[in-house]
């Protein structure tokens, strides 16, 4: 046993940068090959339970709104007297509590405390339902049915809160707790690293494959001026500066201090294994209007933040591999359109 610890302890230095002791020296993977990928995997940690938490947040707000606006209907569903003023008042208060839980969950990256507070709320609801069961005037069947439903949601709440409690605190999570949205997307482009880097370095070409950009104008070696399309036919503008530029490796940038909007990003280029071209990885962070809550509400109506980045990367791949973005009759316009010609050209 002592031996294996000893071998493990000097595995990096003692094996010339190679990992692992199970494999013979000739077949061991190289540390410099696997370590960057382990880093990527580690950076992706900390998001467990996010989808369930978002669902519960939305559920809280929906139920809360129903309790506040239609207290009579919800009272009847719970089997208690919908005409009693006191009942309706309590129902409205419970509704406001639900809404506050929902908002708290949606505005935090790791809404562990908010979900535990939902569990506490469930306990209160169950206590009230138990009291309602004791009153012979109430509709016992309805109350029992409501209780079963609350129990089911409680189980989900507990499960979600436990999952969230187990999440490691990562850099990404801390950023997001400050209200910054951070998104990561990647694609493999069938071109060499120098070609892809050179294409990317020429920012003025971006509007060719980024559909939300109107123009990019290079001011000098480090600075450029960006104009992007915004909702309702408006546009937003900002100046960006390059923070770091390592040819064929990475470019990172951020909007200059005092810009209309904050955004920052890094793109990394890496040779894909076995002649597969270039792995392009983009990390983008921005400060959405109304913070995380705003972006989650926007997600209900539009697309998730990473979708735009992914679309842009797919278009980059098409432009680099084929020379143009591929259109179908339906996709040449935004939104759903029938797959039939309409006599119009592509709308970029």
């Amino acid at each position, binding site marked *: 046993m002592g031996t294996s610890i000893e071998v493990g302890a000097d595995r990096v230095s003692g094996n010339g940068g190679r990992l692992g002791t199970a494999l013979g020296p000739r077949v061991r993977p190289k540390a410099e090959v696997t370590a960057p990928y382990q880093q990527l995997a580690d950076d992706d940690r900390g998001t467990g339970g996010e989808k369930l938490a978002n669902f519960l947040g939305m559920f809280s707000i929906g139920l809360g709104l129903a309790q506040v606006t239609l207290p009579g209907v919800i009272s009847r569903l719970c089997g208690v007297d919908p005409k009693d003023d006191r009942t309706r008042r309590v129902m409205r208060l419970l509704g406001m509590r639900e809404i506050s839980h929902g908002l708290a969950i949606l505005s935090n990256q790791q809404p562990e405390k908010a979900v535990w507070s939902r569990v506490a709320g469930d306990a209160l609801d169950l206590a009230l339902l138990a009291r309602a069961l004791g009153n012979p005037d109430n509709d016992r069947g309805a109350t029992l049915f409501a209780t079963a439903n609350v129990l089911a949601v409680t189980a989900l709440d507990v499960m979600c809160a436990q999952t969230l409690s187990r999440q490691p605190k990562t850099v990404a999570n801390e950023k997001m707790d400050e209200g910054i949205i951070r998104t990561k997307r990647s694609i493999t482009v069938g071109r060499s690293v120098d070609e892809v880097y050179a294409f990317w370095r020429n920012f003025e070409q971006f509007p060719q494959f980024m559909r939300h950009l109107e123009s990019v104008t290079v001011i000098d070696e480090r600075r450029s001026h960006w104009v992007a399309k915004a909702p309702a036919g408006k546009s937003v503008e900002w100046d960006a500066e390059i923070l770091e530029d390592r040819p064929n490796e990475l470019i990172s940038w951020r909007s200059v201090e005092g810009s209309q909007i904050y955004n920052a990003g890094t793109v990394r280029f890496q040779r894909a294994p076995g002649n597969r071209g270039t792995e392009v990885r983009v990390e983008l962070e921005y400060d959405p209007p109304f913070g995380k809550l705003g972006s989650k509400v926007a997600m209900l109506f539009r697309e998730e933040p990473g979708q735009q980045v992914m679309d842009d990367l797919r278009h980059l791949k098409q432009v680099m591999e084929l020379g143009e973005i591929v259109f179908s009759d339906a996709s040449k316009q935004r939104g759903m359109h029938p*797959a039939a010609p309409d006599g119009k050209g592509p709308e970029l």
Partner: protein
Amino acid sequence: MKATCWMGMQKMEVKEVPDPQILNQSDCIIRITSTAICGSDLHLYNGFLPLMEPGDIMGHEFMGEVVEVGRNVKKLKTGDRVVVPFPIACGHCAACESEMYSLCQNSNPNAHIAEKMMGHSSAGMFGYSHLTGGFAGGQAEYARVPFADVGPLKVPEGMTDEQVLFLSDILPTGYMGAEMCGIKPGDTVAVWGAGPVGQFAIASAYLLGAEKVIAIDRFDYRLRMAKERAGAVTINYAEVDSVIDVLKDLTAGRGPDHCIDAVGLEGHTHGVMYVHDRAKQFLRIQPDRPIALREAILACANGGTVSVIGVYAGLIDKFPMNAVMNRSLTIKTGQCHVHRYMKPLLERIQKGEIDPTFVITHRLPLDQAAMGYKIFNDKQDNCEKIVLKA
């Protein structure tokens, strides 16, 4: 131009729509001379594939004459007669370079939607829902064909439309189904479904050296075609209690060495399992009825291959993974990489090794496409394959 449009479940209409135009510089526009209704079009007709939009132009088996080419098109010119493969492939991505054309990485503009449903996206396809890109199909007078230098195959002089039309889909699909089996001398192959793709799978299994091929269906006229034209031994599953037992009988207990599912998500059978699957599909608990697939797996000989060319669109239940794992079965499947097979199969047609016209039972003008769908779907009038003439 006139085009066959999907207007809702079991509602097809031939409508007047604007003519297609060049959208990308590698496109061509073709004037369609012949097109066909595919069995997989019936899945759209019956509403089993998601993401259709009223007004979508149907059709992915078509051919015609080039009338316009984009600036970057080099190999085709106006006046060329071509047949068009149904998957849209760019010819330059890693998938195309390894001849997996139906997995082209660049041709599906709606890849993000497909990714949500399937993990990763497949290629764009003509007239086959917005999940495969929202490309207008070819059951029309004209069609826009992207990547004109990659897909369309020039038709040699002297060959008729009907001789080459099925190179667009069903002949290569049936052929790939047989090829995926890795047939060795003496092998017995069983094919579920004696529709047009099943017929071509049977014929292809013989082309690739199968000793005997067994066809399974419930329509006598289809089984008759399989027996008389493609040379299969036939089983009408509606007339036997257990197809698996009959297959054991025919192979002295071994089971067929390879099984091909040319049925897909709308399988039929008799008995409790069918009612169970049908009910689940109706309730949208299970989008697909994998009846043929289950039977193919259970029937297949130990160590054999189950080749799936029937279309699946969603999730399936009661998948006998125990049989697959414990009996060392290999499952091979995929939307056909048509581009890979067009030239070799064209040569086989020219040499007289196979005559694909044998499946055609109906020829209709494009105007009557809606009626064609009904006849084909309801298996009226011994319908096997409908060709539409524009």
